[in-house]
């Protein structure tokens, strides 16, 4: 069963909305800099959403604000904002920071004095993404906040696809959001995987990732719902699968078997062969291990000529938002007919058998693949189709 995308909301350091994002991609613009959202001793560039001003509420988590803004954009894009009442709408959102009570000041005060103000606790308790969206929109339907680390956004889209396929809802708001936050910033630093310079996905000299923030939201619909609303699709979610390495908490299985299963499963779900794929938006965090494993699997499955890139050089690693943003970027690329160069890549690693595209590249064909990998051994893949060839829609 095909699932249709009728709306997109994309917010990242690369831009707030499609126009700004495409301009950044076209110009190769990388909007990273020192962290400004909190004080830190750790020297690593971060991709902040500096221009973000659409705070729906003054007293909610930044992550939920980002998510609500992207949701609003997706609903407007799908012409659904005004006709949302009475519809069977599911909400599946991925997050990392939005699920965690990690306020250092709260904990310090509690530990030292035995009591602490409840302000940050209240923010946290109101900050669950899927519950927050349901409350904001006053909708009812299945609701899940996915916390599968950096694969959460992709997995949330996959959850929504399952709901739509099994009739639990007719429309789903799916994606992910995360804000830049001090605790994970220090945590990633402790793992030794933060780069002190701009990240270089798949490059010989890559030395780690840059953290970012943002939100990506897709409005997914069943064919019946879309036709009843007389909407044109922007894309079709053709296939999805995910797998687990059952290997290590933070390192990918060196064999890449889990990622290979996820990609193969997504292709089977889409009823496609690997040679149907026009390009791949890879997870490509720019860590030594991730890029090595991922590129080898892409080469094994798609050969040496597949066009691929990581967009982390434009957005940073936005954690749970990454998979949803990148699914959105795939849709933009299918619509525009080009993908940007893999920002940060300069020199091929001899251990990596294929190179990403280095400049804006025209693409032909109708199918894109987006991959995600996350702590906990999560591997996920989405196959996305351009609706152009579906003449009857």
């Amino acid at each position, binding site marked *: 069963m095909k699932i249709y995308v009728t709306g997109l909301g994309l917010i990242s350091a690369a831009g707030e909305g499609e126009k700004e994002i495409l301009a950044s991609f076209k110009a190769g613009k990388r909007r990273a800099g020192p962290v400004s959202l909190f004080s830190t001793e*750790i020297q690593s560039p971060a991709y902040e959403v500096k221009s973000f001003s659409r705070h729906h509420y003054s007293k909610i988590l930044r992550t939920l604000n980002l998510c609500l803004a992207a949701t609003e954009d997706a609903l407007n894009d799908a012409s659904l904002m005004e006709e949302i009442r009475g519809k069977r709408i599911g909400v599946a959102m991925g997050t990392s920071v939005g699920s965690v009570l990690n306020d250092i000041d709260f*904990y310090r005060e509690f530990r030292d004095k035995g009591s602490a103000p409840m302000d940050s606790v209240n923010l946290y308790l109101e900050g669950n993404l899927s519950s927050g969206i349901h409350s904001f929109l006053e909708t009812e339907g299945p609701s899940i906040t996915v916390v599968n680390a950096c694969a959460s956004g992709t997995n949330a889209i996959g959850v929504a696809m399952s709901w739509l396929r099994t009739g639990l809802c007719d429309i789903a708001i799916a994606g992910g959001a995360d804000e830049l936050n001090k*605790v994970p910033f220090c945590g990633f630093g402790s793992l030794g995987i933060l780069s002190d310079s701009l990240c270089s996905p798949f490059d010989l000299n890559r030395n780690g990732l840059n953290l970012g923030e943002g939100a990506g939201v897709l409005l997914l619909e069943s064919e019946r719902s879309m036709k009843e609303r007389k909407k044109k699709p922007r894309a079709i979610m053709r296939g999805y699968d995910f797998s687990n390495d059952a290997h290590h908490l933070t390192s990918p299985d060196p064999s890449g078997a889990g990622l290979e299963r996820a990609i193969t499963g997504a292709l089977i779900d889409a009823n496609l062969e690997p040679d149907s794929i026009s390009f791949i938006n890879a997870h490509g965090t720019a860590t030594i291990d991730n890029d090595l494993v991922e590129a080898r699997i892409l080469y094994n499955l798609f050969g040496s000529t597949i066009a691929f890139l990581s967009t982390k050089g434009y957005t940073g690693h936005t954690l749970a938002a990454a998979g949803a943003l990148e699914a959105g970027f795939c849709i933009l690329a299918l619509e525009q007919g080009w993908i940007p160069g893999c920002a940060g890549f300069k020199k091929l690693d001899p251990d990596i058998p294929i190179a990403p595209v280095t400049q804006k590249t025209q693409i032909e064909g109708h199918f894109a693949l987006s991959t995600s990998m996350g702590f906990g051994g999560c591997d996920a893949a989405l196959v996305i189709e351009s609706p152009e060839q579906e003449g009857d829609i």
Partner: protein
Amino acid sequence: MKPVFIEGIGIISTRGRGLNKFEQALKEGWVEPTISVDGRKAYRVPKDALIDYNILKKVRRSDRFSRLAVFAACDAIHDSGLDIADLDHSSVGIIIATAFGPHATIFKVSEDIIDYGEKKVSPTTFAHSIHNAAASYVASALGCTGPVMTTTQFYFSFQQALLLASSWLDEGRLKKVLVGTVDECSPAMEYICEEKLSVAQNGKMSPLSCLKRPKFVPGEGSAFFLVSHDSKNKKYGAFTEIKITSDSHGWTDVDLSIIGTNAMGGSEEVYKDVLNEGIPVAAYSSIYGGFMTGNAFECVAAALMLKNQKQYASSNIDGAEVWNVVDKSKKRELNQIQCISHNNKRQLAFIKMMK
């Protein structure tokens, strides 16, 4: 909803590890909770319940939160009669629902930052503070390479996880799903509960009192169900319907209603509107304490009652404000049971289970 058959159950609670311990607790009713380290009463899982070197050798570095999940998950597989080594590892999915995640470990990351500085956070602690660390350990312990997902919500997280498990089975994505919940207490969380909720100083929750401001005692634990669409492997009946709604109409064709009054969702007066006078009502949260994923524990109780054809007396009927309270344990024909819970928006979630 196509029936989702229960093949195995694993549970760990303040009364110990395993279904037998839980069933014994249902028979015994309320006992005074253990005392937490800072003097607050809480229904905590005893340390000796988390000692099993056959399992621990697979998860040696794990934190307590992950261990709670791994023990219950492994027990669910064992209870089904399957050997972990014989599992079809790629066709078993795992869904873990949690309200607060590994927050005790998350606070330890903050503690590292406070005590040692931003650059001296323990990488091991940080790795375990990720919400899906427990699911990763469960997958590793079982060797499962199929889909593994962690979800989080404060209310109805088990119900939503169960709906997703049902979808995965309906899609044919998987043959079996191990779906469960885990949450733990910590001094900081117990403090938060004390600030936000009305704590029962005597350590005794009254889950049938349906008060506007119910009395709360923190609880913790983990419960897992191995489920499939294959009726041949059914051991405890099935989940047959799930609905989450703003109206207060449950099913009237059930033999028993179990209410998930855990004192965490605000006013419990909502149950007065829901409970049909003719249907016997039970509640058991004073056995295992208040925690948002405790709804899975009510389903374990229901599954045991359907299997044993026996109703267990409510754990504490003080101040009962609902009708037809189950106050005696006895043999009884039970074909269908509904488990009801509520959230702070006065929505209700209903899970119907059948023999």
